């Protein structure tokens, strides 16, 4: 806090509580991120590394398979791609896809 300074022990606990309640989303333009768990709030709510290419330009050494990108579009709205609505109309869209790296071809188009 910048305009209130915690003086007694309870105030310090209040300050910690406020930081945990209100300080877990951090806009990237606010400067260096706080040293505690938080969401970096930039173009996306979620940081999901490894969906493009690795340092050698390939896709074999990524920390997550490229197919994971499809799920990020689907589950977390990571990227505004056209994927079926899994809440109401197509809850079983990925039911044949137990493992994205192996079964991604089983995910088919949908025809509303």
């Amino acid at each position: 806090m910048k305009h209130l300074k915690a003086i007694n022990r309870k105030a310090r606990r209040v300050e910690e509580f406020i930081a945990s309640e209100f300080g877990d989303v951090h806009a990237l333009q606010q400067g260096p991120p706080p040293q505690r768990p938080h969401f970096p709030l930039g173009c996306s709510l979620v940081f999901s590394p490894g969906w493009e290419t690795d340092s050698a330009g390939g896709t074999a050494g990524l920390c997550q398979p490229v197919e994971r990108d499809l799920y990020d579009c689907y589950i977390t709205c990571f990227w505004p791609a056209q994927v079926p609505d899994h809440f109401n109309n197509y809850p079983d869209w990925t039911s044949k896809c137990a493992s994205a790296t192996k079964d991604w071809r089983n995910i088919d188009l949908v025809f509303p």
Partner: protein
Amino acid sequence: MSAYRQGEFHAFEGGGQNYLYLVPSAAIFALEDLSSAVLDLLQGRELTRDQIIGDLIARGYALANIEETLEELHQAHAIAFGEGFVEPRLEAPQQPFPLQTVVMNVTNQCNLSCSYCYEYGEDRIATPEGKTKFMSEETARSTADFLLNQSPGRRAVHLTFFGGETLLNFKVVKSTIEYARAKAAEMGKYIDFSMTTNATMLTSEIISFLAENNVGVTVSIDGPKEANDKFRVFHNGKGSYDVIAPKIKELVKVHRSRPIGARVTLTAQVVDVKKIFRHLTEEMGFDEVGFAPVTTSPVRLYAIGNNGLDHVLDQFTELAEEYLTYALENKHHGFSNVNDTLQELHQGVSKAYPCGAGLGLLGVAPSGDIGLCHRFVDSPAGKLGHIDTGIDRAVQAEHLNRAHINTKYDCHTCWARPVCSGGCYHEAYVRYGDTSHANLHYCDWIRGWTDVCLRIYGEIAARNPKYLERFDERKAI
């Protein structure tokens, strides 16, 4: 349109710095220019966000800073918006609560006849007729066992010996200390001992025993001879000062393992706080002196009326300011009323109950009857069971329900409720016939004294913050 207004707090100043004591959290925050300016704007009125921003921009503050300040003040509940906050109700602690302290009344007999005594005076509530006057060794051992067994999870517990006059049954005090210490060691616990005495029966042997066994000692004494002997007299009316003075001097000289405290009862006739303090520290050698206004019905001649309490507060304030000058130089000052309050303010305690009586603290009568605290032993009011049969959980639960701050509606608009929580059960019982009644007769006193201590706290925080580190550890162990 929704507007901002001030939240619930007590604003105070210390060492040129503005502070907030937030209620009910008991958090203390220092304000800077802009946060002070926002709160000043909202003094006694409500303003919209645009009005606040417009006013402060005109005074040269940057928009981003104003918005940030509003957000911080709102998050800390220093300002409220729209419907405001629903403050969580203070929860009652889970039962059974582990014991921390037992006050053992080893006798209800006394060799003095202090007129104001709550045990024998005009406002007594005890009815010890037909019960044993001296605690037996067997009951004392059962009490020590009870304390050790009923304190699961606590590494250390505390046993206080009390009376009557405690030393009338010193034999039991001595044997209980030996027994309880061995028993605690067997159980892997630490037990700490203290006692209160009128000092009339202190001997060199007793003093040596207390020093060797690290027993904390508090002496009831009301000051210099003329003050002490007004009420603290033997059965024949003779004052006790000349008897106790040399014994106390020997006690404070020999017993150096613990600070020796004096406990002064203020009455309408004995209110010269500074003079009493000087005498007890400088001439008698006490390390700490604590003062408490007499507990009494208002009609007694020694009762301190409202004007008297104002006078006491003035003197407390002067002595507290002396404490402050000592604290700024990192020196010890024995005015324990300030020290105790600063401890609570530093921790930011917000009490569901005024004290631990009936919860972590119990009083035990010579007969083994359990009372809320030592002031309720041998009294039907506040009886909580017997040492042989344990705490009557139904009676205890009823007490805890009724005494909880949530039920004391009179307190809900008072900013001092985090430290007071309605005040002493015994005082309430004597005044209102109800242990759970808020002590409305001393609200102004509590608020006045808390404000004085907040200002002292604020000044220390501004000028010598390292001093406050001594209050980091909670007193309770």
